[in-house]
């Protein structure tokens, strides 16, 4: 299977690097290849460093952090030959880059784009969005986002945060948004595919400060019904992930990754006789966004 690709974008100072620092230190078992513009602000616990040379730092947890000094395309071409060594690629887009374009470049090298996450600084993003020099750039970044992370929420008053969130809804409607501070985002939310431990008997659960809903069925889903379900999810849903059986192709298991508003559905492996014949799906959202009865009804109606 091809390595999934996530792009982390956002203007200079929004906190992209702190998000990456957390991912590298709390990788949730994923071997992540993180491509950064430079090591300047990357801050890896010395105990985690296995080896380092000019352009690459290898971590004891299986992750690697690598600079883009030789150019993004050169690094991507090299990673093509090392697909077995990693589970996920994360690219830090430069402060003025359109992260979706970076994602398209990654996809052109054979790494399917599963999410464009844009980090914004709660204190400064609105002023940046009208700045003479970088206003257009910041607006294009917001529009390119599948998922927005409003960082530094602790640095603004609650009313200001609410007003910012309302502005984001007006500016980029239908883009799921979560808030955080210190660049902290749970790796399970941002990157990790579905794990067995994430589905539980009780359909309603929690994922840190998020609510989650899990669903399991022995009946294969139709692709069109699944798409309709995902499209209908409210914007408070930031993430969905699953391992699915599709009526459209019974020969393969499918891996579902939905990050913000982007859905990727990729063949995971061929169905074997030992596979439990079922579909597992978890939906994660901000508190209040999960309506388990309605979701069950929607998906139930699909079958």
């Amino acid at each position: 299977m091809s390595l999934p690709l996530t792009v982390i974008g956002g203007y200079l100072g929004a906190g992209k690097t702190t998000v990456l620092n957390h991912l590298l230190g709390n990788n949730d078992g994923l071997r992540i290849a993180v491509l950064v513009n430079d090591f300047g602000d990357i801050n890896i616990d010395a105990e985690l460093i296995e080896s380092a040379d000019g352009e690459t730092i290898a971590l004891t947890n299986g992750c690697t952090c690598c600079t883009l000094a030789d150019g993004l395309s050169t690094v991507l071409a090299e990673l093509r030959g090392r697909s077995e060594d990693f589970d996920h690629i994360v690219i830090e887009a430069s402060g003025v880059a359109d992260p979706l374009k970076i994602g398209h470049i990654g996809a052109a090298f054979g790494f399917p784009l599963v999410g464009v996450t844009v980090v914004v600084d709660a204190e400064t993003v609105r002023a940046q969005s009208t700045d003479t020099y970088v206003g257009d750039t910041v607006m294009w970044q917001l529009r390119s986002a599948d998922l927005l992370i409003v960082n530094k929420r602790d640095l603004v008053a609650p009313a200001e945060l609410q007003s910012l969130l309302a502005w984001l809804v007006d500016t980029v409607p239908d883009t799921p948004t979560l808030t955080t501070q210190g660049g902290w985002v749970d790796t399970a939310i941002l990157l990790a595919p579905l794990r067995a431990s994430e589905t539980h008997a009780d359909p309603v659960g929690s994922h840190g400060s998020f609510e989650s809903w899990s669903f399991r069925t022995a009946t294969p889903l139709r692709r069109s019904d699944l798409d309709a379900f995902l499209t209908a999810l409210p914007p408070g849903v930031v993430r969905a992930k699953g391992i699915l059986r599709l009526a459209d192709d019974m020969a393969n298991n499918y891996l579902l990754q939905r990050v913000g508003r982007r859905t990727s559905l990729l063949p995971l492996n061929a169905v074997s006789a030992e596979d439990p014949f079922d579909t597992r799906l978890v939906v994660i959202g901000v508190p209040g966004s999960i309506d388990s009865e309605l979701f069950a009804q929607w998906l139930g109606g699909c079958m």
Partner: protein
Amino acid sequence: MRKLALKPGDWIIGYGYDRSNLVEGRELNIDDLDPAFPDNPIMLIHSSNHGAVLNTAAFKAVGYNENTPTPAGGIIARKPGTNIPYGLIMETAFLPILTNAPKPSERELLDTLDEAQKIYTRAGVTTVQEGATAAKDLRVLRKGADEGLLYLDVVSLPLFLEIPELATDFAPDFVGGPADIPDEAVKAFGAYRNRLKLQGIKFIVDGSPQGKTAFWTQPLLTPGPDGQPDWRGQPVIPPETIHKTMAAVHAKGLQVFCHANGDAAIDLAIDGMRATGVKAADDRRTVIVHSQCMRPDQLDPYVELGFTPSFFAAHTFYWGDEHLANLGPQRADFISPMASAFAKGLRCSNHTDFSVTPMEPMRIMWASMVRTSKKGVVLGADERIDNWQALKALTTEAAWQIFEEKTKGSLEVGKLADMVILDANPLTAAPEALLDIAVLETFKEGKSVYRKEP
């Protein structure tokens, strides 16, 4: 192919392809290329470096066929009525191919230095500016210089984002960012060593006007490169990063060269240098490279801060029609405003961005005097300059911009005998006749380095 002893299957890679330079005005395709190159993959790289035209052998070699989907953010032109790749590929369809294309070794690069210098000597050029040098390319140039392979003077401008990598060549223990250029590296600037000189640091603020990646204050009249409405381009580096590094480089006494095409990019350069407190009297000769879409009100800050523009007036010929469509007549007429700049007392040079445009000094001179597009439209008749100014912009002013006016730029006792013999006088020739002037012989420090075959 016979001269290079190419075997079937060997790649042929060309540079500087541009549809707008073809008489037919359309893209080349496999039907044009295949009859001439049936057995060799050929890739003609677009002058933007964002795409190329391939022949059928090349498509086969890279694995593109009628079943290849067009990737997001890319273009694969298809033969009309079929799904067969027809020649042109762009952006994400091209990038993996460029990346995986065979790369010359350091030795192979060094072996091309002679042929590369001949491009200049044939044109009568004896000082060459390498206008945006990456650290690894500088290593090749330094090695070539040390091996005595340079017979022309090469002036290199290392890219500002490459400072950290470059710094380790001079200070092995260096750790830091572009704004932390160490003194060991600073000392390497300003003097020739084996015909190679590091002159200053090159900043890049925006892209190109014809690629619509320049950065303007006002939107274009046409959509952006991806069809965006109200497109005015973007800076390619955060302004904070540019300004911080500019201040540091300037404080270290190094000369700043800043690529800025759009007026917003030029504003950004003005803001950055003004913050350093620099004044014209300091004689720092900050070069704003291209300065193409400057506004009239930006000339005064140039004077105040001691900026010197290096214009690219040949754009009025090569892309004049595009600029007119994208910018409208008022802005297009003020592209590379050489007459206004001279009138303000600014010293300005006029360059070709070889290999984006050809190495043809007389074409550069001609363009600044006629400012006429390929379709014959005059862009800004008021900005035309005379023979004398047009020649100065290629000689005395260009030498002054790199602090070499004492040794180069004019024929005077005590200066280097860097000379060219032309078959007609460019100071008295009518503009159209300039294009017919031939270089008879070129001398570098008195030694003949090119002689036209009789």
